[in-house]
């Protein structure tokens, strides 16, 4: 049997169980969200004992060297004795600067951190409330801007989104941890056409990436497709239209499944992309939002000729796995 020591107690692990599941099962409160090794909310540090390599996949070398690992991806072999601490040292205190509605269901949350957070536009972070509730959200802001900006979709019964929408006030304090994710713009090949596509709050990272690419002087065509079920699901439309007027290389194409208008296309997002960009050979692409849609789009674009190295995706994962889902499915 493997055992994990947290604070002053030892906790036994069942065969094949993750450190996160074992601690939660035995009543220890550990921040977590996706439980799939992606959001990095459950980051912990091993102070004694070794963790399997798989528990450190996707972490920065500097974090690995300090023994940090992901509790959800850590399934130590039989007989392992592991002593762990939380990742409190990596969290930065922050306060809510402003809350405003971008649409009837998307809340813009602006945060100011006590010390600067180094990140790339398009990455995501974990938001940790004072009681430990943790969810991850993509950053819509640029690093040089004075506040971090998140787009939070209000989910029915959502713990974090409900709190932010109804109870939180400017000035409230919380903590942020991160950033994580590799879905961001890297300068170079300034003439290469770029394709950005996403649904719902998948627009948040794309909004950051577009502005980052434009600021870096990207001269090639930049296409942004934002999909929603109905027009109410679209947001930032006037800001994006204004951005397209300022930058002729930038094209903004909103689309909905039902209720299209003269300015908003109607139909499936992939059909819209195919109609506007029939031959994306040699392009670079970023796809963010709903998991199955992002993975399906990635496959279609690969088949259309994009290289895997030019395909960047951030598939939003539900905050709790299927089956164990309570009331807060879909963190972002």
């Amino acid at each position, binding site marked *: 049997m493997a055992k994990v020591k947290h604070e002053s107690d030892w906790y036994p692990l069942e065969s094949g169980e993750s450190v996160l599941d074992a601690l939660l099962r035995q009543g220890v409160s550990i921040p977590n969200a996706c439980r799939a090794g992606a959001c990095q909310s459950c980051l912990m540090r091993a102070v004694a004992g070794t963790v399997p390599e798989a528990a450190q996949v996707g972490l920065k070398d500097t974090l690995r060297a300090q023994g940090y690992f992901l509790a959800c991806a850590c399934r130590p072999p039989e007989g392992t004795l592991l002593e762990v601490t939380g990742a409190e040292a990596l969290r930065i205190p922050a306060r809510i600067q402003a809350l405003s509605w971008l649409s009837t269901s998307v809340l813009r949350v602006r945060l100011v951190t006590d010390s600067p957070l180094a990140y790339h536009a398009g990455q995501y972070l974990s938001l940790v409330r004072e009681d430990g509730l943790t969810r991850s959200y993509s950053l819509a802001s640029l690093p040089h801007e004075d506040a971090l900006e998140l787009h939070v979709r209000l989910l029915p019964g959502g713990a974090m989104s409900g709190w932010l929408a109804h109870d939180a006030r400017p000035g409230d304090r919380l903590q942020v941890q991160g950033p994580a994710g590799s879905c961001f713009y890297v300068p170079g090949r300034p003439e290469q056409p770029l394709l950005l596509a996403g649904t719902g709050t998948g627009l948040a990272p794309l909004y950051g990436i577009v502005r980052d690419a434009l600021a870096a002087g990207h001269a090639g065509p930049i296409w942004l497709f934002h999909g929603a079920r109905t027009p109410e699901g679209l947001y930032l439309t006037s800001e994006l239209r204004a951005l397209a007027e300022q930058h002729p290389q930038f094209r903004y194409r909103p689309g909905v499944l039902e209720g299209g208008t003269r300015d908003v296309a109607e139909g499936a997002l992939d059909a819209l992309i195919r109609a506007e960009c029939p031959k994306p050979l040699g392009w670079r692409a970023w796809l963010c939002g709903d998991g199955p849609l992002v*993975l399906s789009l*990635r*496959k279609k674009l*690969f*088949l259309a*000729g994009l*290289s*895997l190295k030019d395909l960047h995706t951030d598939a939003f994962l539900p905050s709790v796995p299927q089956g164990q889902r309570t009331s807060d499915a879909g963190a972002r």
Partner: protein
Amino acid sequence: MSVTAEKSVYEQLGGEPAMAAAVEVFYRKVLADDHISHFFEDVDMERQAAKQKAFLTMVTGGPVHYSGKDMRAGHAPLVKRGLNDSHFDAVAGHLKATLEELGVAAPLVAKVLTIAESARADVLGR
């Protein structure tokens, strides 16, 4: 006495950079083929592309040790889902077309296909 070992097909093709170029062409053909694409539906594309590269490296005699046991174990779930000779033939066909498309000389293509053929029993669990 000087002994000149014959270069592997892998080396003759151009080594790792050639495999990196070939894997996308090959994987794209495999994914676009309705006869076999359903075996790849639920997989992570990046990991699958890495496996395709390991496969190409193996069948060209490159520096990857891909044992018969791995091939059997790796494909066993697919055999349960109905993987058979027709699927193997389809993949081999895409491999041939990929190498031809990249301008590989016919004798080398034939060599690669012979090596691929030697994995058939392991892949199909026979």
